[in-house]
């Protein structure tokens, strides 16, 4: 079902069905995002999860901004009927998740493996291309040997692959004068594929762990651990896999509730919601991105967050819509210090300016700002010095008639236009 792993320029990859978990209220954003970013088809959602089909590779999937975690779908079916039946019978039904259709499990596992291998291969190939280019720029062989050795020392790769590549390079260089650089590349590729075939676990010695979430009626009869054990034993019996709770090859995720029974494999270890480019998070990154997406930031816009805190909203916005000028303002020294660190860590200092000013005394001329986005402080952690009415009045003075979004007390985003017409955006 999956695309051939050997070709660099393989034809269109096969369509694969995924699902993402999403924070409540963010499902519509995620549905739109998968359609736009991944050209996804068959997009549907059920409270907290969005299901979709796409041919995109891991690089594109990694870019999803409004999702919590991404999974390969193994099974989605009706919830277990727990009303009157005895425990043993439901236990059997759970085992049938696996035993009725072992094919779909094995299929999904091999899709998962192919996705990861393809991704690892692309990374290796792009590194090798970079090396080749350096070689072509007129260096002689002895210099190349030393340079390659030095470069390899700096590369971070899995130990086994690193050792084999090193051997491969040294061997090819020994024959160096006889091979052209193109032939060297082909030799390396063959040796790497052999390494991969040896290194990847076969279907039979896969280690796994079951991660289970139960809610609703099922949770009253079964604990998550019980379900995990039932499924785990069934998997061991059916496929001969071994359980490893600490560092398994693959994680099996099961979610049982009153609406559905869903089984999947998480694609990445870290949740998509935890961004590599944000050092200290303030507002949840998924919500920040969603707010920025509602704002419809156009190229050349002046975007202001008058209570920016650690700058999360501006970071998400500047990353996705880089062709605007972003300004963050806050009264607090500590917050601005955190924001400055965040900007530096994300490499976005050029796009986002910081000011230490108060939201009711912003040094901006009237009608100068195109977009205002803010997570207004409320409640116990942060206090609002002035009342919200005077703040909104000030905001209306400097915004130029375009959009502004605010996150108010109950976390519903509000879009306000200059005619002060209120619409709630979920």
């Amino acid at each position, binding site marked *: 079902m999956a695309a051939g792993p050997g070709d660099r320029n393989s034809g269109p990859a096969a369509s694969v069905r995924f699902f993402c978990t999403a924070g409540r209220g963010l499902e519509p954003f995620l549905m739109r995002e998968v359609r736009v970013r991944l050209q996804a088809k068959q997009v549907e959602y059920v409270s907290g999860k969005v299901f979709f089909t796409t041919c995109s590779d891991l690089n594109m999937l990694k870019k999803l901004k409004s999702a919590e975690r991404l999974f390969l779908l193994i099974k989605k079916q009706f919830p277990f009927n727990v009303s009157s039946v005895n425990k043993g019978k439901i236990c059997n039904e759970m085992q049938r998740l696996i035993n009725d259709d072992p094919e779909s499990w094995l299929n999904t596992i091999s899709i998962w493996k192919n996705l990861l291998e393809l991704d690892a291969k692309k990374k290796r190939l792009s590194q090798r291309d970079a090396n080749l280019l350096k070689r072509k720029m007129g260096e002689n062989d002895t210099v190349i040997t030393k340079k390659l050795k030095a470069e390899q020392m700096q590369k971070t790769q899995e130990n086994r692959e690193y050792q084999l590549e090193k051997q491969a390079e040294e061997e090819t260089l020994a024959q160096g004068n006889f091979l052209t650089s193109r032939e060297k590349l082909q030799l390396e590729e063959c040796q790497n594929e052999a390494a991969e075939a040896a290194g990847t676990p076969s279907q039979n010695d896969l280690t796994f762990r079951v991660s289970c979430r139960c809610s609703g009626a099922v949770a009253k009869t079964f604990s998550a651990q019980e379900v995990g054990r039932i499924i785990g034993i069934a998997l061991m019996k059916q496929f001969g896999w071994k359980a490893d709770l600490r560092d398994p090859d693959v994680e099996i995720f099961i979610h049982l509730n009153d609406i559905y029974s869903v089984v999947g494999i998480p694609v990445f270890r870290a949740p998509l919601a935890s961004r590599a480019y944000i050092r200290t998070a303030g507002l949840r990154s998924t919500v920040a991105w969603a707010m920025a997406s509602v704002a419809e930031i156009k190229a050349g816009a002046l975007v202001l967050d008058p209570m920016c805190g650690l700058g999360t909203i501006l970071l998400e916005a500047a990353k996705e819509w880089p062709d605007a000028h972003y300004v963050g303002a806050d009264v607090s020294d500590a917050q601005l210090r955190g924001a*400055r660190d965040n900007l530096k860590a994300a490499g976005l200092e050029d796009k986002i300016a*910081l*000011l*230490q000013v108060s939201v009711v005394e912003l040094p901006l*001329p009237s009608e100068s700002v195109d977009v205002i986005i803010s997570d207004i402080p409320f409640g116990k952690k942060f206090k609002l010095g002035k009342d919200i009415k005077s703040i909104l009045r000030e905001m209306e003075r400097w915004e130029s008639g375009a959009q502004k979004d605010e996150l108010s007390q109950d976390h519903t985003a509000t879009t306000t236009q200059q005619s002060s017409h209120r619409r709630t955006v979920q």
Partner: protein
Amino acid sequence: MKLLTHNFLSSHVKGVGPRGFPLRLQASEVRIMPVEFNPDFVARMIPKLSLGEVPTEPIQGYEQNEDFLRTMHHILLEVEVMEGTLQCPESGRVFPITRGIPNMLLSDEQTEA
């Protein structure tokens, strides 16, 4: 603080109004930070700038003049004032710039969160 940002700031001292622009800039430490040149972005920013005593209509075809755009790019985006002051031209009130961030709080209270 970049000069592009400075161009958007206007004094908020009470009673000053539009006479609060532009804030007088005195820099004691300036850094030049290379920034990737994006001609489209610079071209879009130019009509937003308040350039004082210049003709209101920019010269025809400035969007295509790469030399001009590169110069504006350098001035607006690559010059970073790290330390200095901003002064309200009308009231004379002075605001410090520290580590690239202007502090323009009018009252002395700062919320430490």
